[in-house]
């Protein structure tokens, strides 16, 4: 099973500058584990305490996974996954 994963610029140092990589997994969670085993450190940039980081958006076939099943969303052969950094910020200092 192969799933194409599109990698944003900010994470390309982990993938030797590749814009798109292949990974496997029957759920998004398993896919991220596979990505991290191929590209050490990438998993930590996507997850924090086992949850998807607030600053990262992941889409499966154009749907935001937050509106699907989150990390437990099932994947099938041929699905495409896109990772993008959220574009956000603001004057609030509450962080």
């Amino acid at each position, binding site marked *: 099973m192969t799933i194409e994963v599109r990698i*944003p*610029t*900010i994470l390309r140092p982990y993938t030797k500058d590749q814009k798109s990589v292949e990974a496997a997994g029957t759920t998004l969670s398993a896919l991220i584990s596979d990505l991290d085993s191929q590209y050490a450190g990438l998993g930590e940039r996507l997850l924090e305490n086992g949850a998807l980081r607030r*600053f990262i*958006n992941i*889409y499966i076939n*154009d749907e*935001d996974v*937050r509106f699907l099943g989150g990390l437990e969303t099932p994947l099938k052969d041929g699905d495409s996954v*896109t990772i*993008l*950094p*959220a*574009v*956000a*910020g*603001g*004057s*609030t*200092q*509450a*962080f």
Partner: protein
Amino acid sequence: MSLTISRTMVDAILEQSRAEYPDECCGVILGPIGRDTPQRLKPMINAAHSPTFYEFDPKDLLALYREVDDKDEEIVVIYHSHTETEARPSRTDIAYAGEPGAHYVLVSTRKEIAPATEFRSFRIIDGVVTEEEVSITE
């Protein structure tokens, strides 16, 4: 490091900032890949509709990146307004900054400096903020 931008685009961003007050406004300027030239202004909806936070809607974000890819463009500038505070990156802005190649532009239309405005540009890379010169072309 510097940003060269047309007066028309600066004025359009300041106008958007006033129009969306008291909420923060946001958007991008796109340009051809590798040229570092802001050419196409694209105002975005602040999905947070907040005076202290902005966020591109996740669907708009994906559509934006698809469009940029299809047209062989890149995001040259990411801008937003601070409505009551200085035009410099907040801790929130720094935490979220995810485009190491982009110029992060902040504008401020806060009352204390009116009718003057601020228009400043920064690089935010790995949490390090560097202000850069802005050259406005007439």
